[in-house]
């Protein structure tokens, strides 16, 4: 169960659960948009489409959580933050699925991490 899915974000989450990583792209200026929203903040256009991205990116930061803040998620665990290859100010979080500890600047690729409820989340390796 993903909390807080809204009318802007639902198609993104539904695509993710089909193992498709898509993002909004402005039909007028071509800028990639994240998180999902109705208008391009760059050119003001309301014309956009969902387009696939490669899933390639670069680690911009990573943390290791040692305190169990949320019920059902046992610490310690690592979380990475990845700038997409398509546009480096689109930053996505995700589980770390690499073989060794992540490093800033490391090239990574998205993987889909299936959840019990049928949704999928993002991992990076």
């Amino acid at each position: 169960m993903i909390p807080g899915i809204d009318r802007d974000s639902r198609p993104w989450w539904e695509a993710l659960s089909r193992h498709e990583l898509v993002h909004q792209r402005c039909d007028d200026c071509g800028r990639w948009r994240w998180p999902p929203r109705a208008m391009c903040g760059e050119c003001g256009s309301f014309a956009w489409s969902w387009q696939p991205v490669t899933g390639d990116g670069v680690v911009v930061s990573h943390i290791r959580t040692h305190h169990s803040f949320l019920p059902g998620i046992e610490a310690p665990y690592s979380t990475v933050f990845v700038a997409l290859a398509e546009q480096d100010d689109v930053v996505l979080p995700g589980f770390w699925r690499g073989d060794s500890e992540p490093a800033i600047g490391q090239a990574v690729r998205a993987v889909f991490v299936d959840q019990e409820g049928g949704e999928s989340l993002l991992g990076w390796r």
Partner: protein
Amino acid sequence: MRDRAAIVGVGYTPFTKDSGVSTLALALQAISAACADAGLTVADLDGVSTHRVGDSVQAAVVAQALGMHDPRFVSDQFGGGSMSHTTVAQAAMAVATGVAETVVCWRAINSRSEFRMGGTGRPPPDVVEFQYQVPYGYATPPQQFAVMARAYLERFGLGREALGQVAVRQRQSASTNERAVMRTPFTMDDYLGARWIVEPLCLLDCCLETDGAVALVVTSAERARDLPHVPALVSGAVWGGGHTLFSNHRGDLTTTAAADSSRRLWSMAGVGPDDVDVACLYDAFTPLVLVQLEDYGFCGKGEAAGFYADTSMPINPHGGHLSEGYVHGLNHVAAAVGALRAGAEVALSTGQPGYVAGSTSAVVLKADR
């Protein structure tokens, strides 16, 4: 609006781990204390200004409880530390424009006993981006600022001691502050040995969670001169923001929105970083202090660790959120006013500098002697 309004009264409740009372009771106690400090009564107030994130009583309810039957100004901002200084900025604007004569600003929270930022089973605040964070177990402020800390330390080749010096010094400052919740000094070795919360942040990089309230009375500069304390003129006030972690339009996790908004702040105030006698910098986590020294122009990017080690300027002399207590920005404004009354001429006080919440705020205060 430079120098047209002033802070003339400061009121505190005790800072505790369990107040045992409602946020409404805390607000009323702090407001009454602030009015008494200003040489005024609650009947002199005609405006109210607060900020909250679904964790405190509404401004209008407080106005009613104060007996204000026709408040001339009501400001009830959504936001945490990032919006903290807008409480004072909105009040100063209301006074400067004549909308109100005397506005009380406050923040009242039971952030230890009722609403912990890390979650106490209550739903998270109404923030659109939370849906992209919570499923990964990424939902709390120490995690958000660990993202910044990692990027900052790595970019500038710094060790943890760069952050530790802030924690150590602020605790030292708090040791002589009777209001401070944490007063026992610790060493750099203690810091380096403290348990991890979220790498690269350890327990002593993180602020306290406190029950308490702080209130500030703002009135016209003219009226302020007839009141008991040296007025703290609101020389500059700034709102800013425009990016978050996931859509920062910056490509740089080590720079905050304050890098932009601070230019407007100094311009409005007619002073610059070199004129500041005391800086109260929002310190939910140690890296914020360093980043703000850069983004408010005290030193260049990447130079804050060295600047902090060398400067004689008091920075969070009350101990800040790390050691005095966590009243979400307003105990910083109160500390700045205290420093001006004690002899300082110019003080900077800042809210959370953006990057997580998409907004920020700050004020420059000057003593009117």
